[in-house]
């Protein structure tokens, strides 16, 4: 018994010593810097577009020694991002928790109000890019433009297979738009992840998709798939031959945001640190090159501008989901 109590005593002594030491380092810091490895939550699974971007950002940070502590990506793809949102909302250490988000940042809290996630509570760090969507078909189909696509899809009725990345996802929203705008009855088949969807089209297991450029790029360059139209305001430099749907008389523009979000309750020092860091990353030649290659759009947004962008997008997504009937 005696032994135990001395043990406890000395342990306490060591603990308090270390405590004092760490408090001391706290105070001596001038500008805020991360004090331990930063958790970089990804709202999607390993190997997807968001995950690739995070690992790319991680490598930019490490390569250019932009931060004194490492950034560790943690994938939390569960429940269309619900798991990630809840985790970040309840983050024990908001100063060391950031998250890379997709459009599920808006749609998941809207569709699952039970999570109690209010995105206006999250800390706006920086919008890194907006990903674009195009309508793709397999080259073997011989379809060269949207008119031919509409004709073929109409003839096939519900035998026309549109592959996408999940029910009520971005791909589903775009499919619904096409069905409505052109009076089609395409069947939407969800797959896990955009890469898989792209492959289903190239392998002729689907008739069309609405992939991001980065997902179809390989097949496009190999001459296996063709983009027919772009859901962007202007034609994309990489796919000059694909007209926008706006040009075709259907006013529909849709983006996928790629934004870094901080945990709610992040301290002001940490907030401005991450905002500065991601601005630096955005401006780096590595990230700019990545954006160009992946046909990513959009400038850097942060602070209040980013927050009002979120609120605007949230309203847009809400209207779309309501129209689809995915929201009661």
């Amino acid at each position, binding site marked *: 018994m005696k032994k135990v109590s001395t043990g406890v005593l000395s342990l306490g002594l060591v*603990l308090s010593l*270390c*405590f004092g*030491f*760490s*408090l001391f*380092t706290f105070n001596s810091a001038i500008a805020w810097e991360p*004090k*331990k*490895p930063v*958790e970089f939550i990804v709202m999607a699974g390993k190997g997807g577009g968001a995950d690739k971007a995070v690992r790319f950002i991680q490598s930019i940070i490490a390569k250019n020694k932009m931060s*004194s*502590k*490492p950034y*560790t990506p943690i994938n939390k793809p569960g429940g269309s991002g619900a798991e990630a949102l809840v985790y970040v909302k309840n983050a024990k*250490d908001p100063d060391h928790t950031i998250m890379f988000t997709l459009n599920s940042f808006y749609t998941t809290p809207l569709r699952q109000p039970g999570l109690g996630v209010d995105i206006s509570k999250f800390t706006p760090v920086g919008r890194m890019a907006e990903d674009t969507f195009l309508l793709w078909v397999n080259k073997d189909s011989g379809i060269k433009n949207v008119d031919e696509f509409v004709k073929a899809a109409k003839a096939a009725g*519900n035998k026309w297979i549109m592959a996408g990345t999940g029910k009520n996802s971005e791909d589903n929203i775009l499919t619904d738009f096409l069905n409505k705008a052109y009076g089609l009855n395409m069947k939407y088949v969800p797959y896990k992840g955009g890469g898989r969807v792209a492959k289903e089209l190239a392998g002729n297991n689907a008739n069309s998709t609405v992939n991001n450029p980065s997902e179809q790029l390989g097949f496009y360059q190999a001459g296996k798939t063709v983009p027919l139209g772009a859901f962007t305001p202007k034609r994309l430099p990489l796919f000059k031959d694909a007209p926008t749907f706006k040009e075709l008389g259907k006013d529909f523009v849709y983006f996928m945001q790629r934004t870094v979000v901080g945990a709610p309750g992040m301290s002001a020092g940490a907030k401005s640190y991450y905002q500065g860091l991601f601005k630096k990353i955005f401006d780096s030649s590595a990230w700019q090159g990545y954006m160009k290659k992946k046909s990513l759009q959009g400038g850097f947004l942060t602070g209040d501008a980013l927050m009002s962008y979120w609120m605007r997008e949230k309203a847009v997504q809400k209207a779309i989901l309501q129209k689809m009937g995915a929201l009661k």
Partner: protein
Amino acid sequence: MRMAELVMGLVMGIFSIYLMWKSAELPIGWIAGEGPGGGAWPFWLAAGMLCSCVAIIFRWAKHVTPESQSDSPFMDRRSLKLFLLNAVAITVFIGLFHIVGAYGAIPIFLIFYLRFMGGHSWGLTSAFALSTPVITFLFFEIALQKTLPKGFTEPLFLPIFDFFY
């Protein structure tokens, strides 16, 4: 043993029913032109579990399986004591992860296990209790950059991180 076979069959049967009920939150039937609904796969498999449990209990009643014929106790006193001792130790160990973190829990668990369950010397015990957390830390946190839970010992690690990065 015979009793345990019945209890396990019953408990798992009830669990199957719970799973079926839970699966039924999504449509479990056939949706025309689409195939089975979102709850169908787990629902019908849970139904399969239930059928298996019914078969297990039926075979129990007919004394078919070796377990249902055996009169020996499911666990003798000594086994029960060992099982409880180990199970409780692991449970407390995992619980400690939340409070004192991995690097507090590991030495406590090792001291308990090596010294009090294994009867090893204090020298050997302390060697393991000190080296294991250090190796774990170096391997997971520094080499692999996987952060383990630290509970209230978190601030102690900040200077260590400063040292390594």
